[in-house]
Every structure is written in structure tokens, then in C-alpha cells.
């Protein structure tokens, strides 16, 4: 039994086209990542902390490496790959809209952070550096890679950083308004994140009455973090952070 070119064409088109259509109908065709961390079912592990008690920490033991992060990876994918909370990525890179956290691609940071000083880069490389520092996975970050202030705050609060890494972060923090000539922010150096407590706001020199005026309520206890406060009181977290940041920028 022999076949000619026309039959070959039909075979090719039917097998390729039919294969895609059938797998799509069976929900087996996905050209978007469906990455799954093998540690997803074990999202945290128990470990002894400095005081000897057991604490639960995220399990970063996934097979992915920070240098494998591509510009086309979305924050959702990166969160899944490395078991890093999506919120920390979103807030860390100062993405104001929560739905954007899911779909934002690492390379799009370049279009968000524009007009940077010449030796400051805030793009895919910054995401790799953030993930590396967050998870403790090795990565060689370049000297031109910067991280936004909120990302640095999150890392300092949540990651186990060495003195060297902390020094790197301190010298590679980007704050909005950073100018080419001074390399320092001319708006303010305090960054409000969900992990910032009300005591921290007071320590920055903001008066209790100003805080109360901004949040429209009596100031809670100093140890209360802004995220926890927003959740407890049912307030819009992003609106709250934005308002407090505007206040903090004056100091």
C-alpha cells in the first residue's frame, strides 16, 4: 500500500490539527504554564527557631532555580514555582492592582519602572534576585539590579539574610523619585507595606493623630501590622497602604 504527497498532507494536517483540537476539548492542551511545585502539598515545614521552639516556615525545596526565571514568566507562575506568596511578589514590586499580580510578566517591570537612572535596572533580573534572597537559592545578581523599597522591606522581614546580602539590599534599593544625580529618593525613604506595624509609623515621626485622621479610626496597638488591621477592620488594603504611604512620604 503506497501513499502520495497529497495523502501525506492530509495526514499531517489531520494529526496535528486534530490532535490539538481533541486535546483542547479534553482540557489537555495548555500553552500557558500549569506549573506545579512538588512541595505544593507541603507548603511549609516545621523547623526549630532560635529560641528552640518549632515554627512553620515555607518549604522552598522546589526543583526550580532563580536563574531559570524568564521574562515571560508571570508572578503567579513564579509564586507557584518557588512557593513564594504571590502577595509578597505583588507588594514587593509595588504593583498596586491585585489582579495584576497573577498575570504580570517579569519582563513587564521594564515598562512599569521607566526613567530610571542609567545604572539602575529594575526588570526580570530583579525578580530573580528577589526570589534568590527570599528562598535562599543561589544566584549571581548583577550590580545594576535594584529592588523596590517594598521588596527590600519584605526580604528583611521574612528572609534569612546574611550581612553581605543586607548590605547589598541597602545599596540597591530603588525608591520612587530616585534621581540620577543623587541616587537617593527625594520623596521619602519610608516604605509602607502590609508588614509594617503602626509602631513603625510612629517611629518614623508620624503623629498618632495624623495616622488616625488617615485611617479614619483610633490607632490600634503598636504591634498591629497594617495588613492585619485592614483584614480585621474590613478596609481596602491597597487604599490604606496608599494613603499611609502618602503620609509617610512627608517624613
Amino acid at each position, binding site marked *: 500500500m503506497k501513499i502520495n504527497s497529497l495523502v*501525506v498532507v492530509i*495526514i499531517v494536517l489531520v494529526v496535528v490539527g486534530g490532535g490539538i483540537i481533541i486535546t483542547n476539548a479534553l482540557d489537555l492542551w495548555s500553552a500557558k504554564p500549569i506549573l506545579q511545585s512538588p512541595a505544593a502539598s507541603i507548603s511549609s515545614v516545621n523547623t526549630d527557631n532560635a529560641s528552640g521552639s518549632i515554627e512553620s516556615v515555607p518549604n522552598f525545596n522546589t526543583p526550580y532555580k532563580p536563574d*531559570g526565571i524568564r521574562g515571560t514568566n508571570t508572578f503567579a507562575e513564579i509564586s507557584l514555582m518557588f512557593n513564594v506568596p504571590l502577595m509578597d511578589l505583588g507588594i514587593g514590586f509595588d504593583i498596586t492592582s491585585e489582579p495584576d499580580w497573577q498575570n504580570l510578566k517579569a519582563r513587564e517591570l521594564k515598562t512599569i519602572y521607566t526613567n530610571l537612572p542609567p545604572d539602575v535596572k529594575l526588570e526580570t533580573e530583579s525578580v530573580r534576585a528577589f526570589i534568590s534572597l527570599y528562598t535562599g537559592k543561589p544566584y549571581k545578581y548583577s550590580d545594576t539590579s535594584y529592588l523596590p523599597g517594598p521588596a527590600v522591606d519584605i526580604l528583611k522581614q521574612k528572609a534569612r539574610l546574611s550581612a553581605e546580602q543586607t548590605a547589598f539590599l541597602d545599596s540597591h534599593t530603588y525608591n520612587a523619585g530616585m534621581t540620577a544625580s543623587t541616587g537617593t529618593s527625594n520623596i521619602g525613604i519610608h516604605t509602607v507595606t502590609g508588614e509594617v506595624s503602626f509602631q513603625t509609623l510612629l517611629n518614623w515621626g508620624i503623629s498618632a493623630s495624623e495616622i488616625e485622621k488617615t485611617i479614619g479610626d483610633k490607632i490600634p496597638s503598636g504591634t498591629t501590622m497594617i495588613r492585619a488591621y485592614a483584614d480585621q477592620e474590613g478596609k481596602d488594603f491597597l487604599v490604606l497602604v496608599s494613603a499611609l504611604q502618602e503620609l509617610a512620604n512627608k517624613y
Partner: protein
Amino acid sequence: MKNPAPKLSNILRLSVQILFFLFIAAIALNQKLEEMRMTITWLPTSCLHAICPFGGVESLYQLTTAGVFVQKIEQSAIVLMIIAFVLAIIAGPLFCGWICPLGSFQEWLGKLGGKLFKRKFNTFIPNNIDRYLRFLRYGVLILVLIATAVSAKLVFADYDPYHALFRFYSGEVAISALIVLGIVIVASLFVERPFCKYACPYGALLGIFNFFSLFRIRRSVSKCIDCKACDQSCPMNITVSSCKTVRDHQCISCLKCTSESACPVADTVVLSMTKL
């Protein structure tokens, strides 16, 4: 003397090659447009790695051991890998000869090389060296698979000329991949399908199917007039004229040697399931 009209088989194959080439190019462009928030809505915006069947092969180890895909490889790559295997079981590496846009690109550059160098084209590498170089792609295959399994990263992406060809303007392509693409482009002017012959890891894998595919290139010894037209037409330099059945690992099932195309005698070199 007027060139003979192109044969139907050649037109059909060229049409299929152009179709897939343009489709991949359009998807790659749409990815770029997505960055500028101007996508063509009826076209997919998949990453090119998602629609490369070799990504499925690279991901198999990670998928079977760790239950995860290699970074940037999606389920679609596994589906396409299976589709290409199905085609290969039917009639050998049809993916190579009819679909692969990089293969098609090299072939079209080869036509330019044929015009420049005429009979010398595709003969620059001596047979005694060429014979051993043809196994280099198996080394590439093994190396890539091991490196990918160990790192869980798409290692080949940094050297992949297919990705470089369609995304060279994106700023995301590694310099090493651009260099490989440059070498492939230049080499295609001297040798037909150089990447396919010497370096393609996926071609190496699909080539194995030539040993047990259902339909194979077969030659009727009784009808053959030994004109060697089949040998001259073969882009992979296979001596079809010395085979009753082509079981060469380099055959790409392009059918250029068959009686529909180069062979001047009807039903002499055909794609058949049974012996002639």
C-alpha cells in the same frame, strides 16, 4: 531551456512548510505585540517554547520524576511531542520534512546556496568526515537531556536557533543562540539543512523512527534505471539508489526522491507500507 513546471508534490510540501512557518512567526510576533498591549486576538500568544515539541522531550524526565514541567515548558509541548511521534510512527520524521520551520528556513537558504555554488552546493564536506559528523546530533541530544534533567532548566534555550530565529528582536534571546543561528544561516548556503544533519537533538530522536515506521521510502529495483536522480535530490545526501528500503536515520520523509518528484519513472521510488 525552460525549467519544467514545479511538480504537485513539491507545491504541496512547500505550501505546508510555508503554512507552519508563517503560523509560528505570527505567534512569535503576537507575543511581542502583547508586550505593547496590542495583541491580535484571534492568534495565540503562547511562548515559543510552549509550541516546540522538543520541549516536551526535555520535560519528560522532570515530569516523570518530580511531577513538574521544566521551566517555561507547558502541557502543549508534551501534546506536540506526542503528535510528532504519531506522525513519525506513521511515515518517519514527517515533522522534520514538512513542519519544522527551522528546517524549512534552512532549506530555503539552501536554494540560494544552490544558485551560488551550483553543483558544488551540498558537497563541501568530504564524505569520510561527513559520515561521522552525522552522529554528532546524538551527542547533542544526550547532553541536552542530561543537562536539562540535572538543572530542571531549559538549558537548550540558550543555544536554540529556532527560538533565536523567531524572537531575535525580543531582547530575550541569549547571545549564544544568536551566534548558533548565524552559523546555521551561513552554513545553509554551503550545506543543505546543516543543523538538521549535524546538531538537531530532536531530529536525532525522530530519526530513530525511520527504523520502524509503517510507511517508508521504497525503491523498485526492477523498474529503477539507475539515473541517480533520487540521490541528487535528497537534502540529507542519502544514496536512495542503493537501497530497496530507506532505513537511514537521517531521512526526513520529504519525498523529494520519489516518483512524484525527482524520480523520472512512475511507481519506482514511493512511500509505501509494503515491499515493492
